[in-house]
């Protein structure tokens, strides 16, 4: 505020401050609760990422609803995957298997009991990622904060990583693309997959598109957070409910965990 010393002025200012306080309170009440969290730290990152954090997800399959694809759609929109169009003359069936998807909804049925489990399957952000092991150019890499991703400037499109991934999490772009989002460049001849909304990470946002969408639907089946921070929401939940890694026999130490499978 100004440094005016006039008393009357000060009183007016105090009055204003009160009013602003009330107004801010009202907006806080109107805006959805989650939104406030985001606006805390939105400064772009200026220091290199380091391994003090490890990003991960926890999916509670009991809360993941059959027929809901909010996370998939949010992911598509966030990353511009919804801008893909099939090549001319391609059948819908083929296109469905060829287009890039970063999250798949998977339905599992236990044949003995008939119990059905729904879950979103995406890059599991392994500590020991097989895709990185097999990459001949170093394009497939793990960022210091645990995000496994593809440096598209180095990717030659050989797709070894797609073969190596036990989770079928990666897609290949077969055709020229247009209309990409500035924050998510993508194009022909490269492999891509979930990067835990890396652009959001670097702008200090709290969560990922899929997590936000799932929460907006009221399901809250996915939690995002830092696996190395004992106080993070994800660690609190991991402590509380039983969870597993998918294909834990491979000992990849995945960053994405599931409960109820």
């Amino acid at each position, binding site marked *: 505020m100004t440094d005016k010393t006039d008393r009357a002025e000060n009183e007016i200012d105090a009055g204003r401050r009160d009013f602003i306080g009330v107004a801010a309170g009202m907006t806080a009440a109107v*805006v*959805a609760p989650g*939104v406030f969290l*985001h*606006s805390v730290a*939105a*400064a*772009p*990152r*200026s*220091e*290199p*990422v380091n391994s003090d954090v490890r990003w991960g997800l926890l999916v509670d399959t009991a809360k993941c609803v059959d027929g809901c694809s909010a996370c998939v759609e949010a992911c598509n*929109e966030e990353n511009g995957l919804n*801008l893909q*169009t099939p090549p001319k003359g391609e059948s819908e069936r083929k296109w469905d298997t060829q287009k890039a998807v970063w999250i798949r909804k998977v339905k599992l049925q236990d044949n003995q009991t008939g119990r059905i489990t729904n879950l979103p399957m995406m890059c599991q952000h392994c500590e020991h990622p097989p895709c990185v092991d097999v990459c001949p150019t170093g394009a497939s*890499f793990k*960022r*210091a*904060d645990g995000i496994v991703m593809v*440096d*598209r*400037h180095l990717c030659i499109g050989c797709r070894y990583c797609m073969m190596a991934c036990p989770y079928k999490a990666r897609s290949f772009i077969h055709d*020229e*693309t*247009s*209309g*990409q*989002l*500035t*924050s998510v*460049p*993508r*194009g*022909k001849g*490269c492999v891509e997959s979930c990067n835990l909304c*890396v*652009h*959001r*990470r*670097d*702008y200090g*946002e709290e969560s990922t598109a899929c997590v936000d969408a799932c929460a907006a639907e009221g399901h809250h089946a996915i939690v995002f957070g830092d696996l190395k921070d004992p106080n993070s929401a994800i660690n609190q939940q991991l402590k509380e409910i039983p969870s597993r890694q998918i294909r834990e026999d491979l000992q990849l130490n995945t960053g994405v965990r599931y409960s109820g499978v």
Partner: protein
Amino acid sequence: MAKVLLRASLVAVSLVWVLAAQTVLAAEVKRYVVEGSRAAELDSCVEPTERMRRMHFEFIKHQRISTVHEGIRGTKYSLAGCVECHISYDGQQPEPINQPDQFCGACHAYAAVDLNCFDCHASVPNPQGLDAEAQAAHRAAGVEKLVQSGRNGEGH
């Protein structure tokens, strides 16, 4: 004596020539900043113009590594930043910056440089008119969807 005079006048003539040639050269340096772009209203690029002409690709490539591998954003050699500032508009519609009559495209066409960067990178600010920080701010404010729906109909 005559010889000395002749030599002096020769030197003078050639000096005049050199000066004349230089002014012609200076006048002939083609400027690529496109009218209607934000850059057209500013005095300088992220580095002195001379340095930008000679070094921009080195800057961008360093930036690329630090952004993709180290997560450093919003620094001055960002490719998204070049596009944001150098983009020009045809009415409301931003013109793809790699087009042969646009900023990057025109000079690269002249210099016979062939880039594939814009196969992947957006050649216009997308969502339109918002830089990454504005985007983050909009997302934080929860109005991103509203803003996004106004842009990029499929396949443009």
